[in-house]
């Protein structure tokens, strides 16, 4: 069943129609440059520029940020972002480049920044003109994020920042960073404060961004070093010492469990070949029909068929879970499904992509740099990249702790 078949309010129905009409006219077409599978692996400035142009046009048309207030650069609507997202997905649009900005920074700024700061930062964030990154993780603070040691010291109206962030996705393109820093060494959790930092304008004033290379050979995340970087106090979010609380807003949205719907487009296959669409079980079925196995095709093999049907069922259940989560009388704990989102979505993709190895057989050995690779080598690449997301945003083992503790009420494992 498609999103559109569910009941919209009259305003929502009108907006949906508007989105459909706009997308029919303004789909950006196929990219002129090769795109990585997700925004977190963007390294080519031309690819970024093309995607930013797409985000800006969708923003100008009102498909992005529609639920944010007008004075913050939003569309001032209610419950419309999910509709725009669904229609963009259906229209098979490219993904948006400013995903950390929209998915994490925007809701955090919305809930915790001063009004002028919201009006200053959100318009260019939503339009994609300013790329954002997230400075949370450090060499000694990964899963145990509250152990962050990057230090901000008060200096009149300013803060002086020193420290070392790592795995910072998109920092190489980012104007701004959301930063979790220590303002007191006396208390692990209450010693943290939360800032937004214009890192690009500080590149020659104490900020250093160094790219790190992923196991795939791609780049996309970085180390970011702070050496006596000066930041005005207006860019502090919420109280001094309230950083952990603010970070929870970020993390809830990062894991798809926050109250604000993140603008998201997607659905476009990165290759002409639809079977290179590595998040769809139906693309995997197409792939199976093309690959030989045991004298027939992989799609004729009973064990492969069984695996494919398992994935189809999991994909559908994921969709139906999201639907049920929005009906309060059908869930016995309000966070039970939202807190599953990140875990279930990333493992679903990972398992889907792993099965592609068996379906491709010998040809799964061919990488993205080989013209003979099935589906342009996208499936094995996606499989490797899938570990980025089963680890990032709180490793899935940590997600299981959270579900076991917060939803089922079992004692903390730490």
């Amino acid at each position, binding site marked *: *069943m498609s999103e559109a*078949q*569910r*009941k919209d309010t009259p305003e929502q129905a009108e907006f949906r129609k508007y989105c459909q009409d706009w997308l029919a006219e303004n789909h950006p077409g196929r990219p002129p440059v090769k795109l990585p599978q997700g925004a977190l692996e963007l390294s080519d400035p031309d690819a970024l520029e093309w995607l930013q142009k797409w985000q800006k046009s969708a923003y100008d048309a009102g498909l992005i940020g529609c639920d944010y207030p007008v004075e913050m650069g939003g569309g001032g609507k209610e419950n419309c972002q999910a509709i725009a997202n669904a229609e963009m997905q259906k229209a098979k649009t490219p993904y948006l480049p400013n995903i950390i900005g929209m998915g994490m920074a925007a809701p955090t700024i919305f809930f915790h920044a001063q009004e002028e700061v919201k009006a200053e930062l959100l318009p260019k964030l939503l339009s994609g003109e300013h790329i954002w990154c997230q400075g949370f993780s450090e060499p000694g603070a990964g899963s145990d994020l509250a152990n962050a040691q990057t230090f901000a010291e008060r200096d009149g109206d300013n803060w002086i920042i020193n420290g070392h962030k790592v795995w910072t996705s998109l920092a190489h393109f980012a104007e701004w960073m959301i930063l979790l820093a220590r303002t007191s060494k006396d208390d692990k959790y209450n010693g943290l404060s939360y800032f937004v930092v214009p890192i690009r304008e500080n590149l020659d004033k104490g900020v250093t961004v160094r790219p790190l290379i992923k196991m795939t050979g791609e780049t996309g995340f970085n180390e970011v070093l702070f050496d006596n970087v000066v930041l005005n106090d207006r860019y502090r979010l919420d109280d001094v010492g309230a950083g952990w609380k603010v970070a929870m807003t970020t993390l809830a949205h990062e894991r798809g469990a926050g109250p604000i719907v993140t603008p998201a487009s997607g659905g476009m296959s990165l290759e002409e070949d639809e079977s290179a669409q590595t998040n769809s079980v139906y693309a995997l*079925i197409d792939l*199976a*029909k093309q690959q030989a196995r045991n004298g*027939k*095709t992989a*799609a*004729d*093999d*009973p064990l492969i*068929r*069984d695996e*494919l*049907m*398992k994935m*189809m*069922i*999991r994909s*559908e*259940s*994921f969709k*139906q*879970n999201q*639907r*049920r989560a*929005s*009906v309060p*009388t*059908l869930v016995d704990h309000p966070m*039970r*499904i939202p807190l*599953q989102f990140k*875990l*279930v979505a990333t493992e679903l993709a990972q398992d889907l992509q792993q099965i592609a190895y068996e379906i491709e057989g010998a040809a799964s050995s061919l990488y993205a740099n080989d013209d003979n690779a099935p589906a342009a080598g996208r499936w094995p690449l996606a499989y490797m990249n899938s570990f980025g997301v089963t680890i990032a945003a709180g490793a899935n*083992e940590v997600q*299981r*702790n959270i*579900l*076991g*503790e917060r*939803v*089922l*009420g*079992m*004692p*903390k*494992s730490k």
Partner: protein
Amino acid sequence: MSEQPKNFGFGEDETMLRDSAQKFFADNCSPDKIHGQVAHDSNIHRDIECIWDKNLWQQIVELGWTAVCVPEEAGGIGMPLVAAVAIAEEAGKAAFPSPLISTYCATFVLNACGTDAAKAALGDIAGGTATTLAITNEKGSWESSDTDVTVEGGKLTGTAYFVQDAKKADRFIVSAKGAKGVGLYQVEASAENLNIIADGIIDLTRDQAHIEFSGTECVEVAAEGAGDAAIDAAMPSMLTIVSADIVGAGEWLLQTTTEYAKTRIQFDRPLGFFQAVKHPLVNVMLDIDRTKSLVYNAACSIDCGEDNTELNARMAKAQASEMAVFSSSRAVQFHGGIGFTWECYVHIFFKRQMHNHVLYGDAKYHRAKLADMVMGKAA
């Protein structure tokens, strides 16, 4: 075809029905009571018994539960399938011994017959006639055209197997082959030339039998050649309702085992502290939620008259069967030695889940069917 509502069709009436079912089972079917009733004899060679509280059946008939899926014109309430799903989920959570689920399955088949005789039978169900399907052959085939019973001159001959809740039922709906194909026939449990032979089964909350027909008088509810189509049409609803029972039983197993993991201390800590316990229990929860959403979706698509109901229902039952096994196995394991005993309530639900797991086809069976539907038959 109407649009699928976002809330799966759980309106005020359906929610009220669910809440009243919750209250009914809380008042009448504590695990303690059920265990005392159905597990009074642990002897592995015990006499085969059919244990249930007929009084409670009378009460749920008065509450209108058997009328829920009977159309108004046949004397029922004609509520959507999600209403029955809500009740079945609570029944599963209570491991309720009754012919309710089997009567729902018979209701779905009779709804698909479209004959006056079927309509009369539906009216009787609304009034409390416990009715069950006798549509399975000796090999346990779930295919609608497979039956070992034949019909000739209005009389049935042969044996139907794996008949659910047979000793509780007042009436059977029997599939039988005639000259022109499979038809469906109504037979009273009290009929002559009928032998109901109870099976010794594992699930303590059900009974099952094979039924010998030897020239048994019957009433036709679907003509020869129309019976298998009626079963096929009802199958999505049957799969959905059994899956709803699995959801409820799964939730009981999860909550009970979680509670145990919070209170049982070993190594100076509650068991749930250990991730080897905590994480699988979270996985059980994920599995239950997947199932529940697929079941609601299947029910809703049936209520909306969509054309992909078979697909949705087979997905639901495939997922439900997996979860039935997983939820029950983890519950026994994490209860340790006590979970392995007769005295612990867990085995009641374990056994209901394992029965549910295979009833109308297990996960692999439905995935094979789904693959044929979605991918075409294999070469």
